[in-house]
């Protein structure tokens, strides 16, 4: 199925790029901060696209939740890196995430109505699953600063909540 394939592909991409980072060393705190911030930005952009294209009120409610939560988390992240005097550093994982997101954005842009709603909801499930995996398996264990680790753990809870929320949304579309 297309949806499954997409999730697997994204996961493979993330693992591959996380692996590329891991070959040299674990991702550094500046890289981790960049990845986490980028992951939030991507979901905000996807939500903004949904708010523009969709006419479904459940999709709008979900998209507004994504904008609100990820904006709040990213504001926290910005305040933290400022406090820690860390400059987020671009890296392979961030780039892979962005590339995949741009492709998804282009695909969704061609859809409308129920087809868009379904594709958006399914992609949100896949996307949150992928980011949860990256947070759990790579980013949280690699973070050295305890405040960064705490914020990532909060981020994981946010993403897990959104994953279930997205699953509920997919169910509603059926």
């Amino acid at each position: 199925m297309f949806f499954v394939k997409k999730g697997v592909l994204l996961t493979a991409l993330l693992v591959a790029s996380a692996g590329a980072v891991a070959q040299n060393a674990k991702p550094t705190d500046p890289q981790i901060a960049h990845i986490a911030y980028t992951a939030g930005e991507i979901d905000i952009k996807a939500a903004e696209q949904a708010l523009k294209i969709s006419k479904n009120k459940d999709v709008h409610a979900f998209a507004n939740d994504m904008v609100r939560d990820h904006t709040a988390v990213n504001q926290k992240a910005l305040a933290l890196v400022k406090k820690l005097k860390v400059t987020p550093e671009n890296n392979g994982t961030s780039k892979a995430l962005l590339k995949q997101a741009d492709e998804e954005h282009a695909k969704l842009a061609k859809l409308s109505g129920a087809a868009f709603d379904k594709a958006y909801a399914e992609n949100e499930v896949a996307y949150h699953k992928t980011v949860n995996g990256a947070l759990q398996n790579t980013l949280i264990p690699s973070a050295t600063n305890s405040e960064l680790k705490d914020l990532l753990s909060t981020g994981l809870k946010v993403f897990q909540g959104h994953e279930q929320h997205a699953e509920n949304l997919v169910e509603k579309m059926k």
Partner: protein
Amino acid sequence: MTDGSRHLYRVLLVAIFALAGPVSASAEVIQVKVSGFAFNPAQVVAHVGDTIQWVNGDFLAHTATARDGKWDVSLPAGKSGALVVKKAGAIDYYCRYHPNMVGRIDVVRGKAR
């Protein structure tokens, strides 16, 4: 008003009502902390007429929403929300924004103390 003083205010208010009439004789305010993406305690027992107060300590907004859709209390970041339980029975609730956050209120018939 700070959360602490608001809580005190509620307690006083409840105390005044408790003096005023037998209906609220046993009314209490039951606090549920909302932090780290969980309701704590996740399960509370209340009497009819009690107030459930959710205190959101997270930097994100949550809701306490009845599973049956009968009520929806919004809990902005760092703020509280409250609800008076009016009927005996079990109420399952969750957060609309993060449906993996769940809680339950067991409402038992109020008894005069």
